[in-house]
């Protein structure tokens, strides 16, 4: 691998404040047990899981709370042992109320019956995929797409390359970074298990070269598993699935297609670690590593949080705040979601909790496009964001569609560089929704 600069794609941006130094040296800590967890039922993309418990039931840690609601769905498990006190709506991470199971912890935090550990080196690939599904593993980088679905391409599509995403290109987030430093074996073994599940031996882990310590740690142990560690250029959105594939394999995912169309499958390093837990130890996915960071946080740090932990409690774990936060974001600053309530709880894809001060979140007034072309250079999809947004502003969705707005990955690079502060990503989201509505009719 080239250590100096690393592989990359065309386009992208270099955010000046990457904020990673706030929490990158803070070791992962186990969160203290809370009295109550509010477990959001739908934590995956696809069909919502079906509840199998009711109010008043006693549950053990890791016990099934909801079963998969279809093929593109995963089951959900209890984060701790205790009693289900109610099932009610709580504020959701996307701004709309969602149904959640309230679990009053009994303080024992006792595992129920674990799934039987598997010897993955000899296990059938299908058995591994089933186990990954039964453990409720989803893409933990942000999308929350069920992992087993990605591992099950239709028979005509042959996979020949597995890539683990350790780029962590979002500013401020360090959860994957710490995971790779502190639990390299889990990540590497997870990669090997995933490779076995899809019958691929060509396995890469892509890491941005601003995490040399993680690269060195992984490199020292990678040979045993036959996994290649690839240094990637520090650039946003280096960890976007299509661009990660492009950087490492030089293959281009066709428009409207999936990585499997070009023989690739990409998984987040966090998901790989969860796969190791599920297969080797038989543990379901009930907790994840989340970065709690931002200038207002007293001790920016990385925590192993149980699913269902309210954001407010996570902030308290990190010492609370030292100045009033004006914005609270679930995820990273480029693609994360601003939250209205601190009662929102951690889900399988909550990679970070980012707090921002008032003077950090200047709300810009957008002015007319001055056609500087910065967005054109920044767009990793080679689109023309400026012209597209002009078309969308005058509601010419057919023109936007013709100019490939549907290929937009909403990474926000264009909006980041725009000197006119135009709400480009909002325009594209709106346009995509309108076009989908039209094509459905």
């Amino acid at each position, binding site marked *: 691998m080239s250590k100096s600069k690393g592989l990359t794609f065309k386009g992208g941006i270099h955010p000046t404040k990457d904020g990673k130094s706030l929490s990158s040296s803070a070791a992962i800590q186990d969160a203290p047990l809370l009295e109550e967890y509010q477990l959001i039922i739908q934590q995956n993309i696809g069909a919502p899981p079906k509840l199998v418990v009711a109010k008043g039931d006693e549950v053990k840690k890791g016990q099934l709370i909801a079963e998969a609601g279809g093929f593109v769905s995963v089951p959900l498990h209890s984060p701790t042992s205790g009693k289900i006190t109610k099932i009610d709506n709580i504020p959701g991470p996307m701004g709309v109320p969602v149904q959640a199971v309230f679990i009053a912890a009994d303080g024992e935090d006792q595992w129920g019956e674990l799934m039987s550990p598997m010897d993955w080196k000899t296990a059938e690939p299908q058995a591994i995929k089933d186990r990954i599904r039964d453990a409720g593993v989803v893409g933990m980088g942000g999308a929350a797409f069920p992992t087993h679905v990605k591992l099950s391409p239709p028979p005509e599509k042959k996979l020949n390359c597995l890539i683990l995403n350790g780029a962590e290109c979002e500013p401020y987030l360090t959860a994957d970074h710490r995971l790779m430093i502190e639990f390299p074996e889990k990540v590497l073994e997870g990669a090997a298990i995933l490779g076995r599940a899809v019958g691929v031996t060509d396995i890469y882990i892509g890491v941005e070269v601003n995490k040399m310590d993680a690269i060195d740690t992984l490199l020292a142990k990678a040979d045993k598993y036959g996994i290649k560690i690839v240094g990637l250029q520090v650039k946003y959105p280096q960890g976007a699935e299509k661009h990660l594939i492009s950087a490492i394999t030089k293959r281009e995912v066709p*428009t409207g297609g999936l990585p499997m169309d070009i023989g690739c499958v990409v998984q987040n390093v966090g998901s790989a670690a969860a796969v190791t837990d599920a297969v080797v130890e038989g543990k379901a996915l009930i907790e994840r590593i989340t970065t709690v960071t931002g200038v207002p946080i007293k001790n920016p740090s990385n925590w192993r949080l149980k699913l269902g932990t309210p954001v407010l409690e996570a902030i308290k774990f990190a010492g609370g705040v030292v100045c009033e936060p004006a914005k609270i974001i679930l995820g990273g600053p480029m693609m994360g979601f601003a939250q209205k309530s601190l009662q929102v709880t951690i889900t399988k894809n909550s990679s970070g909790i980012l707090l921002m001060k008032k003077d950090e979140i200047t709300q810009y007034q957008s002015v007319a496009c001055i056609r500087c072309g910065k967005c054109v250079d920044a767009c990793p999809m080679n689109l023309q964001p400026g012209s597209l947004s002009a078309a969308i502003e005058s509601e010419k969705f057919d023109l936007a569609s013709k100019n490939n707005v549907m290929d937009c990955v909403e990474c926000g690079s264009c909006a980041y560089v725009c000197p006119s502060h135009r709400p480009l990503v909002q325009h594209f989201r709106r346009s995509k929704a309108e076009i989908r509505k039209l094509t459905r009719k």
Partner: protein
Amino acid sequence: MTEETKQEVPAEVVAEAKPKAEMLLPKGNELVLSSSPHIHADEDVQKIMIKVIIALMPAVFAGMLLFGNAAILVILYCIAFSVAAEMIWCKIAGKPLDTVKDFSAVLTGLLLAMNLSAGVPWWLCLIGAFLAIWLGKQVFGGLGHNPFNPALVARVALLIALPKYMTSWIPTRFMNGDVTSYAQKFFTPEAWSNVLSGQLDGVTCATPLGVLSTTEKVLQNGQGVFDNIDNLPAYWQYFLGNMSGCLGETSAVALLLGGIILILFKLIKWQVPVFYVGTVAIFTTVINYFFPGVTPPALFHVLTGGLLLGAVFMATDMVTSPMTKKGAVIFGMGCGIITCVIRIWGNYPEGVSFAILFMNSLVPLIDRFATKKPFGYNVRDDKKGAKA
């Protein structure tokens, strides 16, 4: 790195001052909700305009040095009238005066001044400023919507409407010959009064391109026709800017410095000036090689007239030039060809303004075709990849 350390320090300082951390957590209603991305580059329109103005400074100082007080007055008039024009329009149109703060009117005024002779009267600056801001920009909807470079719209309108004023040039302070007047004196009281009373009308001289267009018609054939304008000492003078012309266009060295600043600040696509000047150089070299009596060599064309000002500052205007690099190459080459055609065979001695305005009108078309192939449309590569 400095940005990061800046963030860390205050957090730690405040942490010790306020241990009761949770008290500060908002209840929820005051939290700002907005769509991603939540961070933004430290860049806005005003900063871009100011940076372009900074890049213009070498040429502005060169103009002041070469043409003295007259240049300073023209610059001040143009800027003041442009800002006034912008404010009056905003008032009439009922728009907030915020747009004045973005410095685009200042820049337009400055660029207009660069495109005028230092000898023009104040009322010409006034007309030019209103033409630039109103006709060049605001009638189309303001900054960002104008298809043509506002300063060039004004220059060409003035050239057609008031050719006498737009084609009489004053000599620089360093020119030898019969220039004994106020223009040679710099910052003297007499010079100011002469400039203010408009006495500059009396002293005129020709630009090298003007000399060229008359020489050409007198001496149709033969070599050595361009001796008086095409020789090494002359080139050195052209390079420094010691020739008559618009107050901002004469000094090649200052304009090149400005171009370097623009490219370093990432304010222009380098393809525009490089392909513009390059096309002119190649085109005139070819013509000069095969028909030496028709036009002087490339170096003359590059250093004289408004080519460098046009290529570095006028053609590169963000609003009126293509958005992609590929488009910038086409745009620059188009400007170059039209400039040469007008200079060599046209009726006007100079063709830069017309060339840029013409290419401005083609920008929407260029933008439509000179696009990058979107990610995921490279079908051949896909198949290769799948096999590998």
